[in-house]
């Protein structure tokens, strides 16, 4: 009898209370802010360093620096967030909401915009030129060792200008519109 009374309380409460479950497709699901749903990338911020590729436990990310692409196989991703914690530019982020189902286990590729790619190429050329100049300067310094320190630096300065003079201002010009976008 006592058992019956125990259950009756619960039963009556259940009869008058609202359902605990949500009427999901009609009512939208509300996800908590911290939910690890899926990875998104702000591709133009990406510097293609490849840290996410190396840290990913299921190895579902690939990066192509020359092409400026970042590829993820979302069906292999375990949404652990390790890549996002390793990203130096913080352009990887986990957002709430599950990924959509798909018909095939295809990977998704994100490509950097042409402006960013152009700016990066310019920057790389500039860096390479600087490096070459530094190398050349060092070599000349070695060759003219007995001469005072200031002399080879002064000599070296015009030499790389042949390479960089055209690229340096262009790189600056190219970076500006990229920033605006």
């Amino acid at each position, binding site marked *: 009898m006592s*058992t019956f009374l125990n259950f009756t309380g619960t039963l009556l409460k259940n009869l008058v209370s609202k359902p*605990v479950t949500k009427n999901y497709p009609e009512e939208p699901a509300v996800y908590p802010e911290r939910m690890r749903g899926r990875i998104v990338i702000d591709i133009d911020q990406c510097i293609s360093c490849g840290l996410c590729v190396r840290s990913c436990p299921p190895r579902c990310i690939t990066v192509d620096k020359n092409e400026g692409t970042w590829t993820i196989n979302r069906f292999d991703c375990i949404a652990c967030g390790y890549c996002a914690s390793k990203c130096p530019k913080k352009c990887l982020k986990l957002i709430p909401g599950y990924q959509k189902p798909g018909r095939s286990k295809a990977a998704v590729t994100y490509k950097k915009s042409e402006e960013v790619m152009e700016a990066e190429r310019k920057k790389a050329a500039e860096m390479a030129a600087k490096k070459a100049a530094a190398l050349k300067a060092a070599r000349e310094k070695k060759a003219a060792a007995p001469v005072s320190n200031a002399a080879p630096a002064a000599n070296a300065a015009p030499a790389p200008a042949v390479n960089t003079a055209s690229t340096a201002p262009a790189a600056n010009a190219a970076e500006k519109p990229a920033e605006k976008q």
Partner: protein
Amino acid sequence: MGNISVVPFGPQHPVLPEPIHLDLVIEDEKIIKAVPSIGFVHRGLESLIVKKDFNEMVYVAERTCGICSFGHGMGYVEAVEKIMNVQVPDRARYLRTIWMELSRMHSHLLWLGLLADAFGYESLFYHCWRIREQILDMIEESTGGRVIFSVNKVGGVMRDMDKQMLARFAEKLGDVEDQVIGIKKNFLNDRTVQLRLRGVGVLTKQQAHDLGCAGPFGRASGIATDMRTRGYGAYADLEFEPVTSNDGDSYARCACRIEELLQSIDLIRQAMGRIPEGDLFVPVKGNPDGEYFMRIEQPRGEAVYYIKGNGKPYLNRLRIRTPTFANLPGLCETLKGADYADVPILILTIDPCISCTER
């Protein structure tokens, strides 16, 4: 002398959430011997150490089990930290403890629901899982995952719980406590439940000790073994006593787990009251060099992690012994002399987690 026959039980059976096969030798309706065989869901997690470095292995270790995932991650991480002599910040230790206890609560409520379903109380099963849902919501809100938390890392934790969140959780836990006390009455005072559980599958203290039973299964037989008393995480600062019973039957196992639910709520409250401010993690440099044997109390009992590193990013050896593995001999002992109709309940009372066992 009746007819002796062998009845195969599993690997596919409505009562089993995961595949285990038992050959039940029965004489009329009584079981005289049970021979278990496992190996249906072996995944080779331990051998993944050759492919994943010790940081990535945290996520693999977590996926040993779907229910006590946080415990596995925590055991692995604490073992690596011990090898590398990393002093984890106090706040991280407390957060780990709170998550571990939430994880224990959701595991025990899941088990209570399955048990209610096994003895035919379907609405009680839904009731238990409704309570569990609130715990899962708390876990999702604080970690971002419902089952796989992914908040552990070598050196600390990744997510924090601020004051408002802790206060909200404390309030919710009050509700959960009331509801658990409500279902406790239904489980422990009901005549039908007592008829199904009392005196079924009795394991004496001596038998449980000899067979090396772990966790609530052993504690229900009177063995006061609880790895939390060893003081990993923040358990050293908290006050608690292992829940034990001397009956050793299925009813005692059920009662032990319900008491542990209430104990977990108490432990979370203690931890919330004492949690210090501070960093969440310390940066870790280098690779583990050495070996460590970590013992941790999972919801199902004692789990053991043996880790050996050689100063390289890839570990030499990882060995996980899960509580279900330790409890299988005890299960076969309890099955002896039991009625055939009680087999589902007896299998459930060890809280079997077969995927854990096979790793």
